[in-house]
Each structure stands twice: as structure tokens, then as C-alpha cells.
């Protein structure tokens, strides 16, 4: 019974993780546009360090989900907000208003099809807590902590980089094959998620100008 809920929430978290990475990456690319990005020894440590500089970021997103049981893809759009160190919000505007908020340890989902507000604490779900801690570690530039949860691969160069995350944890690999974050110079282009069942989600992100750093 409890695990039924855990499984459901694990999936929520996979999405949440992707979203957080998207926001984190969005902030990071803004920093990456700074001269530091031009150095010759650019790599994962440098990218992490840059991510840690982000204090706030906001962006518009369009997400396209391919679900095997549907004959047409599902398209949603809205806004993303991140405030360091641990507040994160995803507001879906179209086709329907829905709010997904992470504030510290608390996750709130509002406006879903059951029209109820669900709040739960990450501490109650260690696999989720581990994920979010991983993300916080990323934002703090702590690569070692990120390594605990994912096999991290960085490819490309500052003008066109790809961060491939493959979950290490068995609980997570049941739901998600990989998450790929694509960035180019000062633009985050895309967050892709491949589910274990072959379904695919592709979120393109357009960062708002003039974010606080």
C-alpha cells in the first residue's frame, strides 16, 4: 500500500528532477555566457561551479510528451521559476492551469484533475529526498553528491553542451532511462526524458531576459 504511493511519487520526482535540472541549467547557461566559460579547461567541474552561481532564474517552457497509448502527442506550456537555494515552481498554463511547487522540503501539487491540493514532505520519501538532495548538490556545485545518484556524462563545448544523466538507483531506473539536458552558450535549449517504457518527453526552454544573479 505504502509502496503504491511511493511508486507514484517516484514518478513525480523523476519529472520534478528533470524540471529542476532544466531550471538549474537555464541559470547556469546564463553564467556560462560570462568570460569564465571561454577557458580551455572547461568541463564538468567548471559547469557545476557555474551552476552554483545562480541565485534566481525564470523561463518559458513548452513540453511535448509522446505517450505510446495516445495517437497524438500531448503538448503543455507554461513558466519555470527557480530561487536559490531550494525554491522551485512549475506553472502549466496550457491546456490547463496546474501548479507544481518545491519549497525546501515541501512539494505541493495544485490544480490537477482531482482539483485538490496535495502537499507532502520529501523527508517521507527518501528516494525522492535523495534526488532532490542530488539536485541541490548540483546547484551548490557539489559534483560528488550528484555522482551518488547519477552517472553523469558531459559532452560538447561551452557553445553546445549536453549533460546526460543516467540514474544509478534501482528504484529510479524502473521509471527513467535517462535525462538529457542540452545547452548552447547562454541558452538552455532542451530537457529530454526517456522513460523506461519508451515514452518520451521533450521540454524546450526559453529563458527570460534580465534574471537576478
Amino acid at each position, binding site marked *: 500500500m505504502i509502496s503504491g504511493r511511493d511508486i507514484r511519487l517516484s514518478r513525480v520526482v523523476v519529472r520534478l528532477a528533470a524540471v529542476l535540472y532544466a531550471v538549474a541549467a537555464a541559470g547556469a547557461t546564463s553564467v556560462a555566457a560570462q568570460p569564465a566559460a571561454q577557458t580551455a579547461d572547461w568541463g564538468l567541474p567548471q559547469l557545476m561551479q557555474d551552476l552554483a552561481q545562480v541565485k534566481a532564474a525564470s523561463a518559458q517552457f513548452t513540453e511535448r510528451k509522446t505517450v505510446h497509448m495516445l*495517437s497524438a502527442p500531448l503538448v503543455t506550456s507554461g513558466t519555470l521559476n527557480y530561487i536559490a537555494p531550494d525554491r522551485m515552481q512549475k506553472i502549466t498554463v496550457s491546456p490547463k492551469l496546474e501548479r507544481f511547487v518545491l519549497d525546501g522540503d515541501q512539494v505541493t501539487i495544485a490544480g490537477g484533475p482531482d482539483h485538490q491540493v496535495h502537499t507532502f514532505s520529501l523527508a517521507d520519501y527518501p528516494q525522492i529526498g535523495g534526488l532532490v538532495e542530488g539536485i541541490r548538490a548540483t546547484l551548490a556545485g557539489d559534483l560528488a553528491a550528484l555522482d551518488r545518484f547519477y552517472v553523469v556524462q558531459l559532452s560538447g563545448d561551452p557553445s553546445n553542451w549536453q549533460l546526460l544523466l543516467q540514474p544509478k538507483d534501482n528504484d529510479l531506473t524502473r521509471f527513467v532511462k535517462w535525462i538529457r539536458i542540452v545547452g548552447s552558450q547562454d541558452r538552455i535549449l532542451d530537457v529530454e526524458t526517456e522513460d523506461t517504457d519508451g*515514452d518520451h518527453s521533450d521540454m524546450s526552454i526559453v529563458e527570460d531576459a534580465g534574471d537576478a544573479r
Partner: protein
Amino acid sequence: MPARRLALGVWLLAVVICVGVIARTHLRTDMTAFLPRSASAAQQVLTEQVSNGAASHLILLGIEGVPPQILVAVSKSMAARLRPDAAFVDVSNGDDASFAGVRDFVWRNRYVLSAGTTADRFTVAGLHAALANDLELLGSDVGMLIKQTLPNDPTGELLTLLNQLAAAKGPRSRDGAWLSAGGSRALLLVHTRAPGFDIDAQQYALARIGDAFDGARAAVPGAKAARLLETGPGVFAVRTRDTTKRDATRLSLLATAAAASLLAFAYRSPRVLLLGLLPVASGALAAVAAVSLGFGFVHGITLGFGVTLIGESVDYAIYLFTQTARGDPAGTTLVRIWPTLRLGALTSIVGFSAMLFSGFVGFAQLGLFSIVGLIAAAAVTRFALPHLMPRGFFAAGAGVLARPLLAVIKCRRRLRPFIALIALIGAVALALHRGGFWDKDLSHLSPIPAADQAIDRTLRHDLGVPDLRYFAVFRTADEQQALAESEALAVTLQTLVVQRRLGGFDVPSQILPSDRTQRVRRMVLPDADILRTRFNDARVDLPFRPGTFDPFFRDVAAAKTAPLLTRASLPPALALQLDSMLVHHGDGWDVIAPLRDVADPGGVAAAIAAAQLPGVAFVDLDRESDRLLHTFQNEATLLASIGSLAILVLLFVGLKSPARVIVVAAPLAASVIVTAALLTMDGGALSIFMVVGFLLIVAVGSNYCLFFERRDHDVATQSRSVASIVLANLCTVSAYGLMSLSGIPVLHDIGITVAIGTFLTLFFAAVVTTRDVAAQPAADRVGHRAQSPREERDRLPLP
């Protein structure tokens, strides 16, 4: 010697009959059997729950002392070792296997279990609404949640059911094993096949758990330092039995050794030493047989306590043996002391007989036990013992023991004001005592050490096993009625949940709906063709691929023809949960529905009453147990008072003089007062066990007083009489004194009370009650009657 043969023949026959009765005796240990006949249904149900209910099968385990990763590995290894074991019904540690059974059951039977299975849901409009909702869910952030189950369950019954069943907060899991909040403990939940009161089976289960832990610790690298914590009703039962057994064995061996050395010193005859046990042993046999015949069963507590209550019959033999003068036949001694002995035994019998009228079955059994036991013991002392004593026996060493007390007796007149002062101080101390005299905390009566209670609280908290306090209970004639009425109750309770006056609830019908409801739910499921047609109409404007929902059609068709669910269909974990809420009880079925997070007990009680569900009562477990304890204490006090009055009346009848009654009763009253004052000296309260102790002080001490009150015709006889009392008292004080060393409340409380009280009685009675030796040889009775009332009054210690 025909008298001798007759007496021994009758005794042997009686022993044989008693053994025959006892062999057929039904021994009960469940607490319901000890409860008042007048106990409310709620109290009986809840007490039975404690001893027999599903919760009593529960063992909570914690592993600690090593890093979290190793805890997880040990937890998994332990669970794998325990699961195949027939001693366990269910082993959960947070991994998938922990829930597989329940999840599979709920999944397969979702249409008969779900309240969502209504006719409306399966119309074209209902199906369209469900599918539109599904589409929305797929696009939302929780879309992943339903993807796997959607083809089978487009109407979302599983989610509804899981939400309903997962309402209670569970522990947190990490890598598939439950860990405590700080990650310092791995947690497991084990249901034993045997109930908690089956102590042998529980002990076996604990041994298996210990083996599994040792095996896991050896198999997992780095787990050497891991420690295992265990708690649960069965664990407590086993530990209590172990410590009680250990304490009782150790202390009774010590007590026997102490008493035996005293008696050996006094008697200098092993045969007489053993003969001294004959009255108490025969008494116990007769008492068990009588209780068995009178009540149809003997309670375990009656057995343990009863022997303590008739312990004074050991003294009977001591009086007989020690007061036999050198060269006198025992028969002669007996004829001389019999009136005193008889009155002493009658005093105790009358004192204990008040218990016969108790509403508590346990008290009533103890009453009958002690009455029959003491009568039998006195009869054996009177009719059988003298025939078995070695010819020419006398207690050679007893005289030495009497010397200190004889010295006290010599200067007793000077000591009397002192005794009066002590009694006065005791009375004043009691009068000034702040707070209640009664220990109201049930946990102080519990034999479970505080450290174990703390572990229990910790693990329960870690595992999120709620400490349930509030329940809705009712009783019906049959099982189906119970299920149907709990469906009605669920409607009322759900309203309270929606109003946020109640956090949640469990009713048996959530796990096993009534047959009627199951039939209705099966009936509203459309036939295959109709369903397919309606479904295709419903999804016409939605982007679902054709064929996606074929599993749904299969599942509905299967559900429509599946047999009705019964208790036998349930997986073990759910069967246990059902049994804890739906209890077959004699001629009826009890439903016990736990209520969680009751914000406003009064309001919830009123709402349940207002719903006018027949016979449904709101129960506050804490209040019920307080009330029970209160009744218990009131009754104990009442019975003790009635017993004391009855003893006074008996003494009047036996002694025929108010003055003599007073000199016999005064030391008893004084020693009970002073003992109570000493026990509550540090502001403490009296436990129920201490009241039993007071009763024993009076029972045992009254014999001392009566012997001191006898007028002996020469100094030698008086010395032997004093020696016998001293010997009896030394045995009692050493036995009960050793008992007071036990950490188990019942042993400690009775031990300390009786040891202090009887010693005080000995001293007080020696000073207050002892009479002068008669000037010339005279028969006792004549001597008493010759006493003038004025002389009697001169001896009174108090105005």
C-alpha cells in the same frame, strides 16, 4: 490405630479426587476471564483485542549500530530468511515483497472492493468523463503515475483504493528497506502465526528471529556491530514470563533455602521439615479443584496468587511442631492449640471470603481458592499431620530463636506508649499525605521494564504504527450484518473525515465488503458487448489508440464472474487486519473500527450518536482502562473493608469479649497503618498489589495475635508458643523480604508490604497482646473466663 488409618485414608482419597479434577481443569490466561462480569461490551472487546487481537500477532524489529547501507542489507537478508518460516504470516521490511500480496489482491479485486463501482460510472457519459480525466492526468505532472495501470483501469479504481488503504502514514524506505527518520535504524514488521498470548509459540518465533538476525549479520560484510531491538505484545509476554520465572525461581529458591535453614535449625529433622509442607500443598490441591468445579476454569493469575494467599498454612505446621513439648505426643499439643489455630484460620477465611462477592471473576476465584485452601490446610494439620509426626519429636532449636522476643515481652509495659506513638505518627503521616493514595498509572503495574517500554514507543513511532486510542465499536448477530453495518458506519465516518474532524478510519468492509455489496458491484458491471459499445462511444473524440483498453474489457468480464470474496480469499496481512476489526465473539460478531487523529473526541462521539447507527458506541480506550482500574481499586478497598469488619465480628464471636478483640485487633490495625505510612513515606502511592499485601498482613498476623493472647499455664509453654510465632514470622519475613527484591511490580509490592507488615505485627502484638502467665495450671477457656473485664482494660495500649 483406626483413627490414624481413617484420617490418612480420607486424606489420600481427597488428594486423588483433587488431582483427578485438576487433570481436567481448563486453565485460562486471557484477561477477559479476569474482568468483572459487569464490564461493558467495549471493555471486554478491547481487552480481548489486547490479548487475542491481530495486534497481538505483531512483532516490531529494529536493527541499529551500523551505517545505513549495511542496515538495509541486513534488513533484506533477515526478511529473506524469515519469509519462508511457517512461524510467520507476514514479514514486511519495506521492499516490494512486503506489499506484493496486498497490492496484487487489491488489483485483482478492484471492482468489488471499490466504492467507485456504480452504474453511473459505466454509462457512456461516465466512461467519457473517466477517459477525459485520464487524458488530463497523462499530460500533467502526475501523468507517469497512471501510465502503467491505465490500459487495465481507465476508471482509476486502483488509485481510489490505494488512497483509501494507504491513509496511515508509513515509515520511510531507502533502497527498498524501511529506515527510521535519521537513518540510524532499519525497521521490520513481523506478524507471527501464533497470537501474543501463546507464549511458547512466541518464544519460538523470537528464537527464529534471533537466528535470522545472526545469520544476516554473519552474511553481510561489516554487520558485526549490528544490534537487534524487538518489541510487541508477544515479546513482552515472553520477557515477562522469563523474568517472572527467573525472579520467581531464583527468589523462591532463596526463600526456600532461608526458610528451610531456619526450620532445620529449629526442628533438626528433615522428615518434619517436609511434613511442614503437607498442609499448604494439600490446601493448594483442594483449592484448584474447587475453583475448577465452581467456575469451570482456573485463571493463571488465581493459581499464582492463590498459593501466596494460603501461604499462612505453612505456619500451621510450625505452630504444631514448635509448640510440642519434649516427650509430649503431637496429638496433645494439637488439642491444646486447636481452638486458637482454628480461630486464626477462620479469621483469614472470613477476611478472604469477601472476595467471593467481587464482580471481578479473578477476585471471586481468589476468594474461593483461599477459603477452600485454608480449610483443607487446617484440616490436614488437625487430622493428618499428628499421625505422621515422628514419635517423641520436639523442636530442639526453637528456644534460641524466641529469646530476643521474650526479652521484649519482659519489658512490654514500658514499650506500650512507644508503640502507641509509632501508630499515631503513622496515622498522622497518612492523614497528611498529599495527592491520591492510589497509583493511577497503569504502566506502574506493568511488569515490563521502563527501558523496554521506551524501545516500544521508539519503534512504534519509527514505523508509524499508531497508538490507537479511539474506536467505534458495535456488535451484531452475524458476520454479513457486521459488514453491512460497517459499510453504513463508513459513510458517517467519511463525512467526519471530509469535515476534518477525523483524520481517518478503518472498517472491516474496506477489506471485505458485505456479500450484498459485492453482488451489487458485480451486477452494475456491464456485459462484455455492452461495455465495448459504450466504451467506443465514449472515446470517439479522444486520442487514445484503439486496442489500448483491451485489458480493461478482459478484467471487467473476469470481475463479473469471479466468486464472492470471503475471509479466506484475503492475503495474510489483510486477513490479520480484518480479524483485528471483525471478531467472532461467543454468539456474536464485534466490529472494532479504529479512528485516527481524532481532533475533537466529544464532537466525533456526538456525530456518531447522532447518526443513529444501531448499537454503535464511541470508545476512548484510555478512559475505559482508567475506569476499569478505578472500579478495580474501589472494589479492592470495599472488599478489604468488608473483610476487616467480618474479621472483627468473628473475633467477637470467638473471643466473647470486646476487650480481648481490641488487644487482638489493635496490633493488626497499627501495623497496617504504619506499613501504609512507610510505603507512602516519599509521597508515593499505593498499588493494588499492596492492598492484597494488607489483607495478607491481617491474615497472617491475626494468628500471631491470637497466640499471644492465649493465657499459657507455665513459662515453658509460653516460650514454646513465642518460639513458634517467631519461627513462623522469620520464615514469612525472609520469604516475602526476598520477594521484594524482584523488579516485577506484583512480586515486589506484595513482598515488601507483607515483610514489613508481619514483622511489625509480631513486635506490636508481642508488646500489646501478650498476657501474663497464669498463676497456676488451668484450662485455657476457664482461665479466660476468669479474667475480669477491668484487668483486660488495663492492658489496652490506647485509651
